[in-house]
């Protein structure tokens, strides 16, 4: 029988929520790694029992955990993320040069084709790869070595590489995004990288249409159309139909186009989801109403989805990696909040229910559809 496993990374540990295909009753296990920040967990698409977790702490630094039994047991693997060569500098908040320093792993992305390969997006921004299930890590230093690297600058959350998207049609093509450098693409497996930010406009920048410097919050792609990308930028929801070569704004009738998450329906490549947030000044929803917005037209035309979500006095945020979908026949959509709620919809967003509502602040959500 099919089922769903929701991997929840929080400020104080990891939680695993499981249900059968009906998605009505949920079992909750955790906290795993109690007291540690879990920025991200993700399962291998080739082996759903293989999970990775990024565990970190201001006291004890970074640990990477691996499970080979679907999260029942875990073991630490290598946590050494050493930049390739002399790291050099990027820009600090005040515009002065600042040495590249490893702080944490924001995102783990297991390979679509190689069972033991996994990518890690880290702060300060760089992409690492392990070909041995996390036992050792090597930087794909062509990214940080891109000529624009010394001009990258941290966003408010740090200079994090938070998005890694692998192209299912071409294992050499990878998309990544960095706050606040922008989006980049490699077509040669990570040797060389191209900034893909044409069409983004960020009035806060000295050059609002600069090649780099944009605060990209998240990017999503439907696996059936790997050249079509959707982006939640700091402000603006964007779309590219040419693998990031150019972008156009599709914020349309959204009440605010600031936000963090964006995702795509599992079976409808033109159906996308965002959670509008009032502004970068307050980081909570408009009017105390938590609403997901759905577009069935690939952007521009959006409808609010609030049935089952709090519609008054709600002042939580939904962080950039905290939305995911399952691929059951009726697509499930899930997101977590900084208030510790995980909401799920088993009908593509029409109706929502809290799967759990008193966790620590949720940093990330990933979903595995189990057969």
């Amino acid at each position, binding site marked *: 029988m099919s089922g769903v496993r929701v991997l929840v990374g929080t*400020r104080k540990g990891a939680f695993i929520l499981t249900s059968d295909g009906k998605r009505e009753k949920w079992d909750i296990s955790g906290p795993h790694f109690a*007291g*540690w920040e879990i920025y991200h967990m993700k399962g291998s698409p080739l082996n759903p029992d293989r999970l990775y977790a990024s565990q970190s*702490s*201001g*006291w*004890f*630094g*970074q*640990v990477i955990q691996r499970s080979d039994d679907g999260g029942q047991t875990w073991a*630490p693997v290598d*946590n*050494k993320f*050493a930049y390739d060569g002399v790291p050099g500098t990027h820009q600090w908040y005040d515009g002065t040069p600042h040495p590249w320093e490893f702080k944490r792993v924001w995102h783990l992305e297991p390979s679509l084709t190689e069972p033991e390969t996994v990518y890690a997006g880290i702060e300060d921004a760089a992409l690492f790869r392990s070909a041995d299930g996390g036992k050792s890590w090597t930087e794909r230093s062509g990214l940080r070595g891109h000529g624009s690297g010394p001009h990258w600058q941290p966003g408010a959350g740090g200079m994090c590489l938070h998005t890694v998207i692998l192209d299912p049609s071409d294992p050499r093509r990878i998309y990544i995004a960095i706050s606040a450098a922008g989006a980049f693409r490699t077509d040669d497996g990570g040797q060389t990288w191209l900034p893909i930010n044409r069409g983004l406009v960020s009035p806060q920048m000295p050059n609002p249409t600069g090649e780099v410097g944009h605060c990209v919050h998240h990017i999503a792609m439907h696996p059936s159309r790997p050249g079509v990308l959707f982006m939640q930028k700091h402000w603006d929801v964007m779309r590219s139909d040419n693998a990031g070569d150019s972008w156009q704004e599709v914020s349309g009738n959204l009440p605010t186009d600031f936000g963090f998450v964006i995702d795509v329906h599992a079976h409808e490549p033109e159906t996308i989801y965002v959670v509008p947030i009032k502004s970068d000044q307050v980081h909570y929803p408009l009017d105390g109403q938590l609403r997901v917005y759905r577009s069935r037209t690939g952007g521009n035309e959006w409808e609010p989805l609030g049935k089952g979500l709090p519609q008054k006095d709600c002042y939580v945020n939904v962080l950039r990696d905290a939305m995911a979908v399952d691929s059951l026949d009726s697509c499930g959509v899930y997101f977590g909040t900084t208030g510790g709620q995980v909401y799920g919809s088993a009908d593509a967003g029409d109706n929502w229910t809290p799967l759990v509502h008193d966790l620590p602040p949720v940093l990330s959500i990933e979903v595995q559809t189990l057969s």
Partner: protein
Amino acid sequence: MIRVEVPGHLRTLAQIHGEVTLEVEGPVTQRSILDALEARYPMLEGTLRDHVTKKRRPFIRFFACQEDFSHESPDAPLPPEVASGKEPFLIVGAIAGGS
């Protein structure tokens, strides 16, 4: 035999129960103790000091015999009571607030 106390979170990580006892060759210093500790428990590498520079992480502190050795040279000899095992070498996560 050197006695070492490890912070609770790291005891969980390394599945350590109670105090750790280590054999340390040569002078007993912060560095030699941490080298021996990491050799026994490789998963602790990077959690107490930087992988490459071996610099102490900012919120890690080292105490022994009611003294703070955190700012001493990692190669300075520790008190004979630590070297003899009479007193433990305490690795402490700083009380630093947080969320």
